[in-house]
């Protein structure tokens, strides 16, 4: 079998995405399966990302695989000045698959070219994080029963938010309508709006929550980070505009669900947590099933 890596969500065809989501459904029903017995998976985290790493390690462990790796660059040979090329070539000898998180953009594509085993990109700087997108798609399909013709609200930092960009590109395959809610400084970049126009998809831009939120099928929240603002005054002005409170959800559809890639800081008030429309913690659990599906697919198992 030809070595297959997952670097960007665009590496997958629409049929493959659906097949992986279906496979993840099977893992949700039966998460403990000994499919990776005798396999070794490397988790190379050149920058810490506890949530993503634990999700991957949970997925691997539940499939009976063994894990080797490091949790930050300081405890690896990178601190001695080793190149990524050398690290990846060496580690390829020790394992059947590499999961890599790296702060430099494009590092994952490069690693997939020099590795002799499949590579899963667990985030390369501000570029791609396809397994996050897969778990978002899984969560959307599970809560809405479908992926087609949904109205997706993206809220918060839409300029630098890697997850919202990938989600937008992915959901465009299923005729989604988008509503963007963001401060002026963190608006959705023109290239993504151009992409949607070229696809003939509708999008609307807002600077705050309005009554239109009643049309939402999914509200996808992201963190508005202070360090993204050139003018701290601007941040102070907008920081409370993008906080979701339970009182704002009254008019929303009963089937609407709130997603968030986590970690949350204050952009979703804790009074939302008991609301059945809050889905962000279950969303994180779905990450384990989708990662199980991706791991077995790339290893040619099942």
């Amino acid at each position, binding site marked *: 079998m030809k070595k297959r890596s997952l670097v*960007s969500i665009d590496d997958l065809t629409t049929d493959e995405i659906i097949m992986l989501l279906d496979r993840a459904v099977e893992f949700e029903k039966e998460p403990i399966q000994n499919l990776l017995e005798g396999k070794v998976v490397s988790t190379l985290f050149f920058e810490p990302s506890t949530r993503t790493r634990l999700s991957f390690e949970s997925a691997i462990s539940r499939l009976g695989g063994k894990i080797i790796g490091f949790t930050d660059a300081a405890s690896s040979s990178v601190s001695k000045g080793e190149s990524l090329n050398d690290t990846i070539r060496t580690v390829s000898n020790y394992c059947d698959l590499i999961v890599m998180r790296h*702060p430099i*953009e*494009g*590092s994952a*594509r*490069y690693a997939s070219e020099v590795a002799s085993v499949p590579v899963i990109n667990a985030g390369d700087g501000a*570029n791609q994080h396809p397994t996050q997108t897969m778990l978002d798609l899984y969560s959307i399909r599970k809560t809405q029963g479908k992926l087609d013709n949904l109205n997706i609200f993206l809220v918060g930092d839409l300029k630098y938010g890697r997850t919202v960009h990938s989600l937008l590109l992915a959901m465009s395959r299923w005729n989604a309508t988008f509503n963007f809610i963001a401060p002026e400084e963190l608006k959705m970049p023109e290239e993504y709006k151009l992409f949607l126009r070229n696809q003939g998809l509708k999008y609307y831009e807002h600077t705050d929550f309005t009554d239109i939120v009643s049309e939402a099928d999914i509200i996808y929240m992201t963190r508005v980070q202070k360090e993204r603002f050139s003018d701290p005054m601007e941040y102070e002005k907008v920081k409370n505009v993008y906080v979701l409170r339970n009182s704002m959800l009254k008019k929303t559809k009963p089937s609407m669900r709130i997603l968030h890639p986590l970690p949350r800081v204050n952009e979703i008030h804790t009074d939302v947590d008991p609301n059945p429309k809050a889905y962000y913690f279950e969303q994180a659990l779905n990450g384990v099933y989708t990662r199980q599906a991706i791991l077995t697919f790339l290893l040619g198992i099942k």
Partner: protein
Amino acid sequence: MKEPKQLSVSAIQEGTVIDHIPARNLFKVIQILGLDHIDNQITFGTNLESKRLGRKAIIKIAGVFFEDQDINRIALVAPDAKLNIIKDYEVAEKSVVEVPNEITGIAKCVNPKCITNFERVTTRFKVVSKKPVSLKCNYCEKITDAEHLSII
């Protein structure tokens, strides 16, 4: 009155003449085509007047004929270059360069956080627009447009 001393540049018998190179990019063209590493006779002129380019350069290379894929590598720095293929002192064929669909090496990715700017990685781009030229990095997936294009 003294006669100005002239160095005559004779016409080549067989080879290639590359004309309409922007003068400032002459040495980049030489580098991209590897002309600084070959033994053939090469003559070039630069800062020649050109109505279209302001100042242009021209290169005559004896005994060398380029494949399209090789000569197209100079399209990024000399998009209007014209080629004359010389056989037996006559222009046997004329052609223009064309921006290829993919570019390997040559250009630098504009993204300072791209792996190609950290490690010895040969850059690779998909050409998303030919005029003006716009390149999408194979690695970080960011766009380098004509305005920010720099040659390695």
